């Protein structure tokens, strides 16, 4: 068995990378991610992890070092937040286009302006078109476990895509929680070393990686294969979670976690740490008041679990989508994605109401979520939804 320790989300994620025996770690400091960088440097300097730490001069170079190192055959790890993530944005497309299973932890931070070091998932969600698998977790234990799972998912030959493990800065990154550290020998059995066959910079097998395709030669096919790999990842994410559960005794549900959905007519759908708050609200409403409400915690934004959500939501009357992000001019990113999922049918879709909450780290309380849950329960038979995108926390503006 493993050992238990009090860890922040950041330290837990770094332990995940250590246990995954990453071999090259280029990381640049940025609040609220910096503790991951410091911990990686410490692990490597102390000899706890046999790897190369590269103290890069920017996030752009962090991901470039990771790309080249992974292409040369090493397992790589990096982490960033907010501005750092958007600074490395172009390289995200490169990592996925070359099909390199790099793992990156995104410690979400609001994007300036105005400058804030507190969380907003817009930084991560802004990367949804880059070809990375994107997984969201709610606490330190899940962060650690998912960094290990992420390597197993990304390196699966059916997938071969980079993976981002995302959690909210400060809320998850900085608070101490009891975390079980898995035993190294078990992790080694769960996660064999990285042995690339598809892309490898090796003199015995010279190839041009990230090559120029003139005119439209095979560009379409590159993209189509990435799309297919992402589709296959849906199954792999579930299988890896199952195997992880059998090995370590913890399962998370793969693409999503449907909780207390028996007999539910209404659901709260959310991601990240908001799921923990929403869970408490739903538990009480069901237990103490017998209300027909359930919880859906979205874990994968890419691949987006269209089929699973369609099936889960088809029998419901209304769903409140709570999210800590907004695509300005449209609504929450998860809400707009969900509209797309449900448009394919079959049957009538539930009413969707989108609540934009917690931006820039604004506290989201049990009472606020309870008010939303009750309002959605009350309106579940309504013929139409007025104001489908709502900003319940805006204050001081007319």
């Amino acid at each position: 068995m493993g050992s238990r320790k009090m860890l922040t989300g950041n330290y837990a994620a770094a332990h995940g990378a250590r246990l995954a025996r990453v071999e090259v770690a280029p990381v640049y400091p940025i609040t609220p991610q910096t503790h991951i960088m410091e911990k990686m440097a410490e692990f490597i300097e102390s000899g706890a992890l046999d790897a190369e730490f590269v103290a890069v001069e920017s996030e752009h170079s962090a991901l470039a070092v990771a790309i080249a190192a992974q292409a040369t055959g090493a397992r790589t790890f990096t982490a960033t937040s907010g501005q750092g993530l958007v600074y490395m944005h172009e390289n995200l497309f490169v990592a996925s286009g070359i099909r390199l299973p790099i793992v990156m932890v995104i410690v979400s931070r609001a994007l300036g302006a105005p400058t804030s070091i507190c969380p907003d998932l817009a930084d991560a969600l802004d990367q949804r078109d880059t070809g990375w698998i994107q997984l969201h977790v709610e606490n330190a234990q899940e962060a650690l476990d998912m960094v290990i799972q992420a390597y197993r998912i990304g390196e699966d030959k059916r997938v071969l895509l980079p993976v981002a493990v995302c959690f909210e800065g400060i809320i998850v990154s900085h608070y101490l929680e009891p975390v079980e550290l898995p035993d190294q020998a078990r992790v080694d059995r769960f996660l064999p070393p990285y042995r690339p066959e598809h892309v490898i910079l090796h003199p015995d097998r010279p190839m041009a990686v990230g090559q120029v395709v003139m005119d439209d030669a095979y560009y379409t096919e590159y993209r189509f294969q990435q799309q297919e790999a992402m589709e296959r990842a849906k199954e792999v994410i579930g299988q890896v979670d199952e195997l992880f559960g059998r090995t370590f005794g913890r399962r998370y549900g793969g693409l999503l976690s449907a909780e207390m959905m028996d007999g539910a007519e209404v659901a709260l759908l959310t991601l990240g740490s908001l799921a923990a708050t929403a869970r408490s609200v739903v538990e009480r409403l069901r237990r103490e008041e017998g209300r027909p409400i359930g919880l859906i915690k979205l874990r994968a934004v890419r691949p987006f679990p269209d089929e699973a959500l369609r099936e889960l939501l088809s029998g419901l009357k209304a769903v409140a989508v709570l999210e800590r992000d907004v695509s300005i001019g449209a609504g929450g990113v998860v809400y707009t994605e969900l509209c797309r999922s449900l448009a394919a049918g079959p049957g009538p879709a539930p009413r969707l109401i989108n609540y934009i909450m917690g931006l820039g780290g604004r506290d989201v309380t049990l009472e606020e979520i309870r008010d939303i849950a009750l309002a959605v329960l009350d309106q579940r038979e309504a013929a139409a939804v007025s104001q489908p995108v709502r900003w319940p926390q805006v204050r001081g503006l007319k």
Partner: protein
Amino acid sequence: MKTLADKLTRDEPLRPGHPLCPGCPGGLMLRWVSKSLGRDSICNVGATCLAIATMVYPHSLAVPCLYIAMAPSPAGMAGTSAALKVLQRKGRLPAGRKIHSFAVSGDGSAGDIGLAALSGAAERNDDGIYFVFDNEAYMNTGIQRSGCTPQYSWTTSTLQGKPERKKDLPRIVAAHDVPYVATVSLAYPEDFLAKVDKARDMEPGFKYVHVHSPCPTGWRFPENKTIEVARLAVETGLWILYEVDHGEMRITQRPARRRPVEDYLRLQGRFSGLSQENVRRLQESVDRKWAELGL
């Protein structure tokens, strides 16, 4: 007497048929570099015309090549070196097999958009040889000024001639106290190869080789004059061949008598609009530089 052909290996890691422009010195440079480093090497390619020879299928360089993006080829070289180091330490690659990590990039990539990455890799003393193919403008996009475009040169974004001076990139890199910095010219193959061999055989660390690369298309001269233009740059003193070996600077090719810069300028259409006044100014700046160097 040993000729250049005797010194070079017969192996040709640069395959025939690269699609560079007629008269481009890039093929020559890649041929010499790859002969010196051999097939046990890995190349990170920055944005440069040389990407056409290395990254377009069917690519011509028979060593593994990686293209990431315009700016980060120094970081790419660092990533490859870090991976080689850890994989050899762990026994996943044979420890005794020396695999050279190197990069080629253009002057705009190295000196403008990628300067932070170049400085970072140099300051960390990441292992590898970094080659700059300096054709003194953004040539892949069609001859726009870069920081390395010389003063008074026409480009499609400096129609009246560039008012500012050429950025002295080798000197910037040398200020990082890296083990080795060298300037080379395609008209001086023995000097060129001696420097690449020296960088190759040095201890792990950051080595930098800056290649002055006349471009018939962008500089507006006939495609059979490339080597002549390259040689005139050295003979007029505009391009100084030197090395900085562990902090020690040495001029490696000193022209017996410097020719007037006009001999170099008048072969090139990019300087055709130059006034006599500006020719004089250029001559003065070359004279001043040589005086500063105590030559």
